[in-house]
């Protein structure tokens, strides 16, 4: 299981829990499982999120590996200028 940390206001949608346990080995599984297990997160997941994996930020790479020891943090979808 991977521990996923939500940003604070998303915890309002998961009963106040910011650290979720999710079964996933890559980014795609992570996002799919999150949407299945926590349907209240779906609107935000559909709008798009970025995911920090061990301090590096990913937007779209489905097959980016995630291990049980990875630090995984959900972030607002990031964009630059």
């Amino acid at each position: 299981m991977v521990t996923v940390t939500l940003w604070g206001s998303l915890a309002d949608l998961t009963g106040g829990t910011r650290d979720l346990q999710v079964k996933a080995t890559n980014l795609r599984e992570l996002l799919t499982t999150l949407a299945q297990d926590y349907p209240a997160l779906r609107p935000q997941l559909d709008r798009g999120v970025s995911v920090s994996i061990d301090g590096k930020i990913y937007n779209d790479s489905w097959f980016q590996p995630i291990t049980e020891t990875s630090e995984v943090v959900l972030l607002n979808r990031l964009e630059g200028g």
Partner: protein
Amino acid sequence: MAKDEFQSREFKVVGTRVPRPDGLDKVTGRARYGADMSAPGMLFGYCLRSPHAHARIRSIDTSQAEAMSGVKAVVTRADFIHTPEDEGTRDILDNVMAGEKALYDGHTVAAVAATSRSVALAALKAIKVDYEVLPHVIDVDEAMKEGAPVLHEGRQQESVPKGYSQNVLARSQYGHGDIAAGFAKADLIVERSFTTAATHQGYIEPHACLATMGNDGQGDLWCCTQGHYMVRNTCSAILGMEAGRLKVTASEIGGGFGGKTTVFLEPVALMLSKKSGKPVKMTMAREEVMRASGPTASTSIDIKIGMTKDGKITAAQGDFRYQSGCFYAMNGALGAMCGFAPYDLDNVETVGWEVVTNRPKAAAYRAPGAPMAAFAVESVIDEMAKELGLDPIDLRLLNAADEGTKSAYGPTYPAIGLKATLEAAKAHPHWSAPLGENQGRGMGCGFWFNFGGDTCVSLMINPDGTVSLSEGNPDIGGSRASMSMMAAEELGIPYEQVRCVIADTATLGQNEVTDGSRVTFAVGLATIKAARHAIKIMKERAAATWGIEPEAVEWVDGAAQPAGPNAGKFPPMTLKEIAETASNTGGPIAGHFEVNAEGAGVSFGTHIADTEVDPETGAVKVLRYTVFQDAGKAVHPDYVEGQLQGGAVQGIGWALNEEYIYGEDGTLQNAGYLDYRIPVASDLPMIDPVILEIPNPGHPYGVRGVGETGIVPPLATLANAVSRAAGVRMTSLPMSPPKLLAAIKAQG
């Protein structure tokens, strides 16, 4: 993406200051910008814009305009019959052509294509729009209140608590620790409120395009943009056509800075062309650029920081309220994520708000959302340093984030360069230089994420041994030079032997926009990999020529050679020699690489400024300015210095003079450079850039993006310098002379 791409090496081309390949074209006027393209039978397209800040469009009568001689097409929202699937693209359509309501002064409500500019402008006057003028709201705090004029119904996200206007679209909260316990440990707590004005990126070149839609459903578009693939995808979604049927070619670009990461004229020009059957050229006047393109957000921010008497931050809290114009944009969340990012904090809580107002939809301005947040946070830290009698750099070093720090926005940092920039600033002669009367020195830190994204590069070995390199990102900050340099470095050939072009959307696969400080990192990575691909093929050709295994061939200084004595005795075969025999050895040689280059490293910068305040007028003179930033590896130092200098100059303008000024009726009062004051050369000292090179492990040469971080610290740096020079804390930008003079007089 492999995480540790970096390998230390001795560079021969990278790191030098070679001549820029576009220099001659640009100084002789040969370079072609957005407005420089024409086509036979071309029409001239112009927009009719709302004179009201907020109005329901009851009806639009275009009959008189359509009947005018020389008018070939008139379009309104009724012509855009396709509804894009994506909400963001629907907002873009609503922004480029108003639907039921005009949402800001300058919002396009109709457009005309005619045989001349004069006919088109006359036709615009003949269009009759029946408006029901509605109450408007411009200020972010006013827009958040219940009872404020509402722009959109039902767009509020689930994150917004009850009790706010529907103009509040989203709320994001970040942080960790126990904020109350942190403040309880503090010896000093300072709480301040700040405001910043909306500013424009101030690019020299107005938006322009030439659109051609054929009867066969295929289109060509020439335009000035930061991302022609984005233009293709957005326009095709708006027009309901397949992306592959629209070819977009990027012109040279006279500045973008984030403001050209979306579309304004392009879908309208395509629709006018489709309706008229003729090519249509559209250009914005400067007034239109100011009224109807995308300035940055304006903000209202509250910051509260607790500190021990020796300068350790015990708790930090921020409320970042950003208005981003009339449609959703994620700027407040970025402010909430970036504001405290330079610091190692046990207890931090930030909230970002996204609010809509009757202004044009905000666009990015280098690092979107971050400079305003840094202004507020760094101002409070500076005030606390002064009150506690601490050196501002020492205080920041005491609290600086480092490898292993849990950032204010959540993730734990890998190796980062913030402390290196602070230590370089502390050691620089600027920090200890004497100051005169009415002069003050300020400093500030800033953070930005940096991105990568979809990238394609193709590298052709020509028969004569020259190299043609194709990339898909408009060259804004010198990418043709830096890509050519990285290709030359990898191939082991002179820089002059490589020519880099910006390919159109039909030539390469998808490329992300030139934004997020991504190009030197991501396109550079792809260029190096494409060169390695070509080298692999050239080694195979040499091996076949010699009759040995490819694995027995190595590539050294631009030539294939046997890898060791056991591989055989053959003289090195140069790239040129391999190229000349390519037809004999298997055909043309090309390398390519396609990647989603995610995982770019974050970036930090530290700035120092000296200012002098005239206590009689409130005028500010910037005396000296130094920038310290980590570039990972500066491929072409001139361009890196230019990015750092440009960010500082834009930040100086934002801090001192620039602001969108609205009248009581919600219309923009200063839509031109006579009334909107950007810094000119005579306002500025030489900006001294100090480049640090701490290799980025995610790039083969250690490159880190530099395009955006440079605009993050200047607002705070100038505010701290001016506040120290004037003896009064400035909490509202711009610090224009009337505002500063009033603050000085109020102080007594």
